[in-house]
């Protein structure tokens, strides 16, 4: 027989609230200071799987494999490329991409997203936030390709962007409107593309104008779609991804490169200063290598791991200062002052694992902790699987290598010794637990 519950008197309710509220606040502040509870961190940290060849010896497509491995690691955020250049089955720009999928022509973002391996990411119950690096698809002659931003922004590009992002948005609400998930549509490193366009056209102004036009159109499409579904539990956002905070795209030998701008020279551009203040967005996505890898002034990677977190926090604050006026109402409502997510964060094994100042794991710890404590709503690690080797390029960012093994990393006795294991610790014991175990 159950005992009847005595209702609380008005006085006792106030009394309870009086004691409980400060306790809740203290707990929340402590959790924030520690980067969040393990459960909170699971919902904010995840992995990226970018374009690349299929895994060695695997018959499964790369997207499915990466999703499965990312979910196994415990994070509930997953980011991938959505566009025409790569289908996660054949190599990038393979003449056979999407050939086996039986899609109707023309290929669009919505149609790609409807393919089972893509749809499975959204349907995965263990993934709460999905970040789509989305490029509308158009065939310029060589098969399905990304929207070509090398040409001046104009009605044709605008139509393509608006139509496909709108159609994708409607599809997302139709298919997953009641899922309670978060979908973020973003680009890949605006600064990389700005430099690319500037090199191609010789005009940084053209690059900036194109980018502004593109981002404005994308935001409008996302905004229009979500307004059409006011009661949906799916949250759809537009994030503008940048990669440079302190560096600029500067002229160099008839072209352009990324460098520290010379104080006496006026020339130098980046998306943070030249695009972000001019277009609305819900979220900034920061591809954080400039902060995480090395001091931007010297590019010397051999600095203590703890400095990684300091630099990242400094740059997150800088981004926030510049970007705040352009934050959309929806972004402000949802993310408040913490509207800068980490779109990419990772350390190459060949560059960082053997540095005298410390290997990868303490750097990853410092960067993750700094971003989490700062309040980044999402932190995306680059990436699930290693890229193929590419000569002298930085290599070995993956949680797994291309054969599917988790490469062991330097760690103190008894501490976690791979990205996979350290995330397990993080998601069960929080940052303090990880620090205690690894003696950071």
């Amino acid at each position, binding site marked *: 027989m159950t005992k009847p519950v005595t209702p609380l008197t008005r006085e006792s309710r106030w009394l309870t609230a009086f004691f409980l509220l400060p306790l809740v606040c203290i707990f929340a502040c402590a959790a924030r200071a520690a980067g969040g509870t393990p459960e909170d961190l699971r919902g904010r940290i995840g992995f990226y799987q970018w374009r690349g*060849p299929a895994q*060695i010896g695997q018959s499964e497509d790369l997207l499915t494999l990466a999703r499965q491995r990312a979910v196994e690691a415990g994070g509930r955020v997953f980011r991938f490329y959505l566009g025409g*250049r790569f289908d996660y089955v*054949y*190599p*990038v*720009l*393979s*003449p*056979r991409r999407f050939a086996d999928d039986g899609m109707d022509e023309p290929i669009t973002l919505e149609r790609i997203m409807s393919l089972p391996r893509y749809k499975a990411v959204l349907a995965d119950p263990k993934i709460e936030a999905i970040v789509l690096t989305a490029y509308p698809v158009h065939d*310029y*002659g*060589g*098969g399905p*390709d*990304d929207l*070509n931003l*090398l*040409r*001046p922004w104009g009605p044709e590009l605008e139509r393509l962007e608006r139509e496909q992002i709108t159609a994708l948005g409607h599809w997302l609400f139709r298919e997953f409107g009641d899922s309670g998930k978060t979908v973020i549509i973003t680009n890949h490193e605006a600064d990389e593309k700005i430099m690319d366009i500037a*090199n*191609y*056209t*010789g005009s940084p102004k053209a690059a900036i104008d194109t980018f502004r036009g593109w981002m404005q159109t994308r935001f409008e499409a996302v905004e229009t779609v979500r307004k059409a579904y006011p009661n949906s539990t799916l949250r759809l956002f537009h994030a503008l991804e940048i990669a440079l905070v302190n560096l600029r795209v500067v002229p*160099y*030998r*008839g*072209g352009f*490169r990324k*460098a*520290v701008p*010379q104080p*006496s*020279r006026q020339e130098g551009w980046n998306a943070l200063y030249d695009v972000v203040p001019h277009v609305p967005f819900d979220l900034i996505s920061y591809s954080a290598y400039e902060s995480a890898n090395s001091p931007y002034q010297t590019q010397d990677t051999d600095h203590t791991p703890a400095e990684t977190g300091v630099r990242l926090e400094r740059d997150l604050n800088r981004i926030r200062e510049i970007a705040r006026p352009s934050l959309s109402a929806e972004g402000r409502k949802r993310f408040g002052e913490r509207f800068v997510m980490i779109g990419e964060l990772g350390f190459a094994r060949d560059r960082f694992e053997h540095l005298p100042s410390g290997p990868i794991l303490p750097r990853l710890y410092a960067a993750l902790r700094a971003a989490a404590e700062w309040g980044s709503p999402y932190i995306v690690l680059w990436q699930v699987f290693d*890229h*193929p*080797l*590419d*000569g*002298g390029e930085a290599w070995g960012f993956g949680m797994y290598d*291309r054969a599917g093994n988790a490469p062991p990393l330097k760690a103190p006795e008894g501490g976690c010794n791979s990205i996979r294991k350290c995330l397990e610790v993080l998601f069960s014991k929080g940052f303090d637990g990880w620090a205690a175990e690894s003696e950071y």
Partner: protein
Amino acid sequence: MITGPDSAAQISIQAAEYVRRYGALVPFDISPPLLPLLIAALALAGIPETTGYFVIALTAYLGGCAAVYALVLRYQSPPVAAFAALLYALAPTRMPPASFEHGSLLLSWSFAPLLLFAVDSARRNARPGNVAAAIAAAAGMWAANPSGVSTRELVALAELVLVVFVCLLQGAIPRQVVLAGFAAVAGWTLFLEPSPEPVRSRLASLAPRDAVGREIFGAASLAVEMNPVRASARDVVAGPGRLEESMLWLRATAAGFLLSGDHEKFSRALDCIEEQAGWCLYVLPNPNPAPVVLVSRRQWKSLPPIRGLYDVESLNQYAAWAGRPEAAAFEEGAGAAFEVAADLGPLDMFLIRRNCQPGWRALVVNDNSREVPIECDPLGFMVVDPGREGETQVRLEFEPSWRQRFFPESPNLKPLTDGQFPRIAAAGIVEAAGFQRPPFQPGASLSIFGHNFVPGDTRVLFGETPGEVSWIGPQQINVRLPPDVAPGELNVVVESAGRESFAETIEIGK
């Protein structure tokens, strides 16, 4: 079937495909004309090129032996003639598979006993038919291998002379000597003559999903042989060391895969997706190894020449210009033509990764077949600028002159020379004392960081004025900025061992 870069058989087969497709021969020093012509003729009769190659090689092999038999039979008994034919069949340069790998040589030296037979016939009876047969045999011998005499050919000649001499003088030489000679030849053939292993592996079948339309660098390639710059690049990649330069060349040539047996060099730089018989198929992460991509007209105009095999800076610039992901449609026509098409932007033009040979012309199909020039890029690929925006279709036709068909020339390119060029690192000029970046004051002491500086043979030019150099190492120069330089921008060039770096611009303060 994929073979190593040295496979003469593969080159002959590709030359036959070329003959059939373009109605022109390839340069004789790359592939002698007769064998490809015969293979192409068989192909017209429906026999695949690879089969045709082996049919011709086998026919030549047996034909040569038959000619020896017939020649000796005129002077000796049938057993002796048969013995001579057998001896010739087992001669080192003719023993399969060695001879089958060198089909043109086999063919050429199969004409030799025929020539002897015809000359002997003409000597006995100078009928026009016999004389004509001798001339035809001599012509066949030349057409099968018109290039200079190699060691292998000298050995082949010695073999023939030996066989014929020994057999014709049979009886005058003790039988033991003949048998010993035979045993020596057979032993050399079987144990000492290296077999070139014409079929390296079947790696192509191991990567069918990835290899579609993608060039495999390192596989035998007529296109590479016909392009001196690409052949030079092939030698850098195939040679020892020089990983940075090899990777740049691989990037520049935009191949999809690399076939190499040099694991020491490449296993840390590239992913080997399949390994067989000591060879590895590596994935090359090039942005788009398609046969045609869209490139920037603006960048094209400022593209520097590639000054040498190890000109890292020019190669980097080339790779940045050519390594675009934006593809265009590419369709091989039935004959000596193909088409490229794309929806062009205002600065787009086509980079077609085909050898830029004399005889090609480009017609803009959807602009009244207007002819536009074909330019050659530094690697000897074709660059076609239709000079228009929007959907554009360009047809490329190969219409060489008769001279070009029968005495073809390679693209007008020279093989690249060895040697390195001094390089100033990006942002590599700083104040010597505190490594401060520009602007610099006139007379300041500077350190220049870079590569390939030759101690004792290096000077630094600030504009036209040489700076006072105080120390030179392979990667650093300490130099004083002239005190009389004017404020503003100034070009800095390092000249080392007679070769100049690209200019780096610094700013001089007031």
